[in-house]
């Protein structure tokens, strides 16, 4: 690794393992003064771990960090701050009921005769925010402003705490609208002009190209490379992130196009103005056998709420739901399972796995629930079913008697998939089925969804990663602010979907 004169941070051969996961494999990372450096990679690539090592949350197992040419060992987040490394995390962790000024300057309020000098404090806060091109009333509670402004306040606080030389942003734009993102980027460019080194994690490739100078790609815990953003073609970047050739992606794509021939024209499930007050605005939706419908939208846009309504976890307050042309009257998971509807929930740990039960018991759980209390599946039959799905889905487990909590996230997800496939559903709803799962498994699940559709299943595919939704879905439904916004069929323009998700009026 050649440390250039402008490099402020040089991370050399960073290695980090967690029980069962090799999170970082000898990763090099450099950050230069006055640059915006994007850090990309799929979920589980090691971006967050690298950031946590840099900001002192995790200690690396091996490797060295040089700051301003001096080797350092970063003990804690507090230590990182004192070294000039400030971090803004994905979720704004400030106090919404304190004023903006208090949030920015808490802990270092200007004092006057033993009292807080409010006038001076508010003035300082206003000044710092003005430096970020934000002009607001700093005496208002933080919670009364948009998430973007709150994020700005968090950045302002990060700048105040230390005379920051390095600013780390962990997925700063994941909950921002397009307009708010623009505002954030303006602030980032301004800070860059002042010589601050900025690195940020993002899932949105558009943003990589819009704001970053260099981009580092991680995959499966290993460094793929660092590139000048301007000279890196977009498709190459995607290939680097996914670690598979475009032909393979083309294959999934071709698979998708082929399977789209078989979509039934009869509606399997029809939602007519279905909505739940306070949760999701009334929406219309038609699902067909053999079709994969993707739900795109930001976190909290209503994707999960829509899925829960279709699955019958909640009783809608508006509209009517029909399945096979018959109106749905009973809303409960068991009623849905009996209708042939299955839901792989978003919160795998909380709503999905039953950690202490074995793989076998987890797999047969929904099937047994459908059979009821007394039509007990024999133990031999249970083993047969479990073994069948372990083989079919390639679940890595020492045996089907292993508690499912001991498996890795990807394998847990497969167990839950198996649980639902065992009920032989006609409509399978997958809510973030690939979150936190390694790239290989991810592609497996995407392929599986398409082959299930080919066999005549109707699938609803929910994911935060637009790439993935586009890759697997025949049709994309976009949600925003807890309402269905629009639908895209056929050849979809990614930009158009992005604008629909963000709500910018293009």
């Amino acid at each position, binding site marked *: 690794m050649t440390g250039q004169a402008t490099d402020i941070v040089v991370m050399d051969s960073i290695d980090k393992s967690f029980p069962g996961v090799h999170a970082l494999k000898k990763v090099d990372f450099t950050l230069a003064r006055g640059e915006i450096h994007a850090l990309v990679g799929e979920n589980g690539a090691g971006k967050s771990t690298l950031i946590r090592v840099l900001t002192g949350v995790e200690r690396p197992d091996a490797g060295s960090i040089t700051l301003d040419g001096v080797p350092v060992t970063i003990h804690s987040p507090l230590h990182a701050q004192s070294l000039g490394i400030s971090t803004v995390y994905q979720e704004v962790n400030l106090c919404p009921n304190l004023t903006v000024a208090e949030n920015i300057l808490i802990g270092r309020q200007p004092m006057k005769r033993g009292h807080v000098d409010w006038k001076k404090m508010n003035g300082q806060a206003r000044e710092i925010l003005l430096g970020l091109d934000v002009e607001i009333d700093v005496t208002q509670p933080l919670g009364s402003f948009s998430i973007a402004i709150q994020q700005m306040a968090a950045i302002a606080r990060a700048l105040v705490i230390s005379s920051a030389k390095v600013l780390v942003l962990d997925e700063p734009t994941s909950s921002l609208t397009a307009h708010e993102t623009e505002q954030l980027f303006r602030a980032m460019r301004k800070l860059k002009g002042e010589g601050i080194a900025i690195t940020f994690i993002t899932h949105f490739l558009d943003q990589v190209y819009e704001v970053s100078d260099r981009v580092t790609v991680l995959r499966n815990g290993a460094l793929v490379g660092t590139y000048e953003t301007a000279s890196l073609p977009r498709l190459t970047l995607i290939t680097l992130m996914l670690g598979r050739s475009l032909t393979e992606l083309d294959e999934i794509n071709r698979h998708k196009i082929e399977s789209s021939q078989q979509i039934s024209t009869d509606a399997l499930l029809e939602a007519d103005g279905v909505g739940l007050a306070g949760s999701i605005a009334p929406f219309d939706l038609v699902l067909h056998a053999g079709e994969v419908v993707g739900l795109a939208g930001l976190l909290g846009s209503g994707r999960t709420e829509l899925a829960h309504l279709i699955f019958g*976890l909640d009783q809608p307050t508006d509209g009517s739901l029909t399945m096979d042309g018959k109106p749905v009257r009973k809303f409960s*998971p*068991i009623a*849905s*399972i009996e209708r042939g509807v299955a*839901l792989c*929930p978003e919160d795998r740990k*909380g*709503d*999905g*796995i*039953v*950690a*202490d*039960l074995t793989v076998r*018991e987890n797999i047969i*759980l*929904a099937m*047994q*629930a*459908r*059979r*009821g*209390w*007394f*039509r*007990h*599946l024999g133990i031999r039959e249970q083993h047969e079913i479990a073994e069948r799905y372990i083989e079919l889905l390639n679940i890595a487990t020492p045996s089907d008697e292993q508690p499912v909590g001991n498996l890795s996230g990807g394998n847990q997800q497969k167990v839950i998939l198996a*649980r639902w496939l065992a009920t032989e559903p006609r409509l399978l709803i997958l809510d973030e089925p690939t979150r936190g799962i390694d790239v290989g498994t991810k592609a497996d699940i995407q392929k599986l969804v398409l082959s299930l559709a080919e066999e005549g299943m109707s699938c609803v595919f929910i994911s935060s990663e637009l790439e993935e939704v586009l890759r697997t879905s025949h049709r994309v439904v976009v949600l925003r602010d807890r309402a269905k916004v629009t639908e895209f069929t056929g050849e979809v323009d990614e930009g158009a979907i992005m604008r629909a998700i963000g709500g910018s009026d293009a």
Partner: protein
Amino acid sequence: MSTPRPSVSVGRIVSNRLFVPLLALGAILLFDLIFVPGFFKLEVKDGHLYGSLVDILRNSTPTVALAIGMTLVIATGGVDLSVGAVMAIAASVACILIDPRIVGLNLSGNISAVVGDPTFSYVPIPVVIVVSLLVAVVCGLWNGALVSYGRIQPMVATLILMIAGRGIAQLITNSIKIIIFNDAFAFIGNGFLVLPFSLYVVVALLAGSWLLTRRTAIGLFIESVGISFRASLFSGIHEKKVKLFAYAFCSFCAGVAGLIAVSSIRTSDANQIGLYTELDAILAVVIGGTVLGAGGRFSLLGSVIGALVIQATQTSMYAIGVPASAITAVKAVMVIVVILLYSQQVRDLGDRVGRRLGRKEAAA
């Protein structure tokens, strides 16, 4: 459980679910062997088996019955404090059905003629038993409804019946202690068929419970609900009905315990029957390895052994002359030891020691 292997490793034994309860039982019996002369002596009189061991088994039957039901409730992540009170209610119901004179029912014939009559019962004994158990189940449905449909904390929900239940039991018998002369009824708690009859009752209860939970899906559903009720709900399990069932079944077991208790003392004593037994039942389940508060995996056999441990300890303490009033202190020590044995830190230590011993074994 364990398949035969050429060499049994220490780790396998330690990690067996029944290890702690059996260890505890073994420790107490060892204690008796050393300090209580004649403890293991058994003799046959009139075709009945007598001895301290038989006494322990016989005296433990109400606790065993309670522990079986309590296991299912604790496995759902709850607890039932009302079992002692439900015992008293079932006992009062049984007594009033056998001898309803105190509620002013005018029995035909000479009252004094029926007093002391060992065959007298106002309603047939099988009906007495069935009705008492049904009343107990109704109590359990009340508890279960509060917990599952009312979403009230199990401890608070069952506390209601724990306090109110004794009052209800008093009301049923008009606060009068009814004395039972009926021999058929008294046979439940006092009879002998070589071994005490109540022993057969709880063995049947244990076998029935095992079949009910392990030969149907109920056991799996109870464990699943206890570990993660949300995941169970998403999987289509009626988590509310599962909890309702567990509380109803627990009260049914309490009813059985109440009948055994009242039959053996032949008196409806609503103030004394089942007093503080809920604590013994909970302790038995905890000794048996089902985790209080968290729920999940349960072991009926473990709970039964737990109940035997408690009774054996109590009997042994009496045998060496510890006053009854000091027994609670002994139980407190037991609670501490059990909690330590199940704590993760101590288990980890045990695993390390086990592995080291295992290595030595392999090296030898």
